[in-house]
């Protein structure tokens, strides 16, 4: 007869922990290296000690002087927050339509939304640029936001979790006299917090990290975003490693901080969301 073996003990799990620790190093080390390098003085930049032997803020000073990093961070934050909010808003509206009603062509429209996911950005890049130019919005933060008013990811994900929301609760609200608008905002939305939170995180991260569209649009550093700032330290004549890492650290820091603070909620909301 087999003896019971309690989960998570013994040699087996020690090996598992070892693997996980290695995995963690794999995931964290590059991030650590970025931060560590950003503090190395210029002449020690190719140094390979794990810990910078001499710490210096030169790279930060240089980076802050070379490009308007603070302004760029503010722009990035504004763009990310606004895009997140708007995309959630349009996503909620559209998802609600799909989840709530059957209407002619609904399947087709749904598929159409899903397919936009497959359209490579490069396809729409130039036409979008022309459109933005026609609107006179070049070199403006608004132009960074406009094409992101809606996304397939948000719509599909929200529609999926709305579909699994108990129909009876909606019907109860209908009986109580709520019209669709109220049902969406007073009944649906508060109950999709998990999905909305994790979706918001995904949208925020991907907007924060967006590169190609801002690259196409940016004309003056003051009106562009941090990823462009980072890219400005990478040139054909060689990368300016120190300032590049300093700028990268500054670009990652806010989002890293948010993550560290909200880490538990982030993971919880993913666990509870329909993202599976």
């Amino acid at each position, binding site marked *: 007869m087999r003896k019971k073996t309690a989960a998570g003990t013994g040699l087996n799990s020690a090996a598992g922990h070892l693997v996980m620790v290695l995995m963690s190093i794999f995931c964290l080390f590059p991030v650590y*290296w970025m931060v560590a390098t950003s503090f190395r003085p210029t002449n020690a930049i190719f140094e390979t000690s794990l810990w910078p032997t001499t710490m210096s803020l030169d790279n930060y000073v240089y980076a802050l002087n070379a490009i308007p990093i603070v302004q760029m961070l503010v722009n990035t934050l504004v763009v990310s927050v606004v895009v997140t909010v708007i995309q959630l808003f349009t*996503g909620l509206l559209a998802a609600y339509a799909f989840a709530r009603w059957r*209407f002619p062509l609904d399947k087709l429209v749904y598929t159409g939304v899903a397919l936009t996911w497959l359209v490579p950005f490069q396809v729409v890049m130039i036409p979008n640029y022309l459109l933005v130019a026609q609107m006179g919005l070049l070199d403006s933060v608004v132009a960074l936001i406009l094409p992101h008013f809606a996304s397939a990811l948000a719509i599909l994900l929200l529609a999926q979790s709305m579909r699994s929301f108990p129909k009876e609760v909606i019907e109860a609200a209908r009986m109580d006299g709520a019209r669709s608008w109220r049902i969406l905002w007073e009944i649906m939305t508060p109950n999709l917090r998990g999905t909305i939170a994790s979706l918001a995180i995904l949208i925020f991260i991907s907007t924060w990290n967006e590169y190609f569209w801002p690259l196409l649009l940016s004309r003056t550093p003051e009106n562009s975003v941090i990823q462009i700032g980072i890219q400005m330290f990478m040139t054909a004549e060689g990368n300016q490693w120190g300032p590049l890492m300093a700028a990268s650290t500054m670009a990652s820091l806010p989002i890293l901080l948010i993550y560290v603070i909200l880490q538990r909620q982030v993971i919880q909301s993913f666990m509870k969301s329909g993202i599976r």
Partner: protein
Amino acid sequence: MTLSSRGATAPARRSGVWRVSPWLYLAPAILTLVVWIYWPLVDALRLSFYQWNMLPTSPQLFVGWENYQRIFALPKFWQALRNTGIYVLGLLPLSVLIPLAIAIYTHDLPARWRNIYRAIIFVPMIIAPVVAAAVWRWLLDPGYGMVNLMIEWFGFDPVKFLADPKVAIWTIIAITGWKLIGFSTLILSAANANINPSLIEAARMDGASKWEIIRDIRLPLLSSSVLFLVMMTILLGAQWSFTYINVLTGGGPLGATTNIYYLLWDFGFSTMSVGWGSASAVILFLGFGAIAFVLFRLIDRYSFHDN
């Protein structure tokens, strides 16, 4: 309050409202998607049959299927196609297998450890691709990169991670995977945590060992999530690696790291020919659309609803 007064204040026929309201709710999203994605896409379909440099002053020259023919005749087309396959196959362990193992393994860990590991693994996800590319480039440098110093410390020759044609593609795959592991792990952990615990208990009662439970119960029940990630990997894997290829290798050395997506971008979008670019776009869209269709069918088939 009498019924008749209620009846009188009742809104007009519901059926009428029904027809408009979904469209009202959809309007902002659809408008956005049509303006910013579908209109350019449709235009691309048309332009893929023309030669044009996009300048208002130049004429649009109808060339029929020539743009398509040229793309298929590109010497690197088939290499890129094969590489795309390698990308997908190479990414699968990182975007699916390892996360699957981690999700299953960490599930049985004490909550504290579980959360710590999952939190750490998610970190690469929040690092910008450009930054990730720069940092990895640094770490992998044959001369002064940490990774190579480690390798030398173990007594091996340094590896030219980005310059050796045999290694470079795997390097790009590893970096792409590094960014993805956290996301996949989270998705699979969520799916795993949602497996009804009494199924696991039933299997334990049935005598299944830990491994048998994973093989017979967990994996089949995770199959729809796994397929979803496989689909994402196939459809978007090439896109995800784009930034790294662009920043780190430019498709080289010797075209070793190019993939269909990068190649078409390189020959299509980055040059001045709208026709080429559009034809490339159409090929990508249709090709991946077809794959998506098949995969969606598969996912439908392999989703099991437990109770």
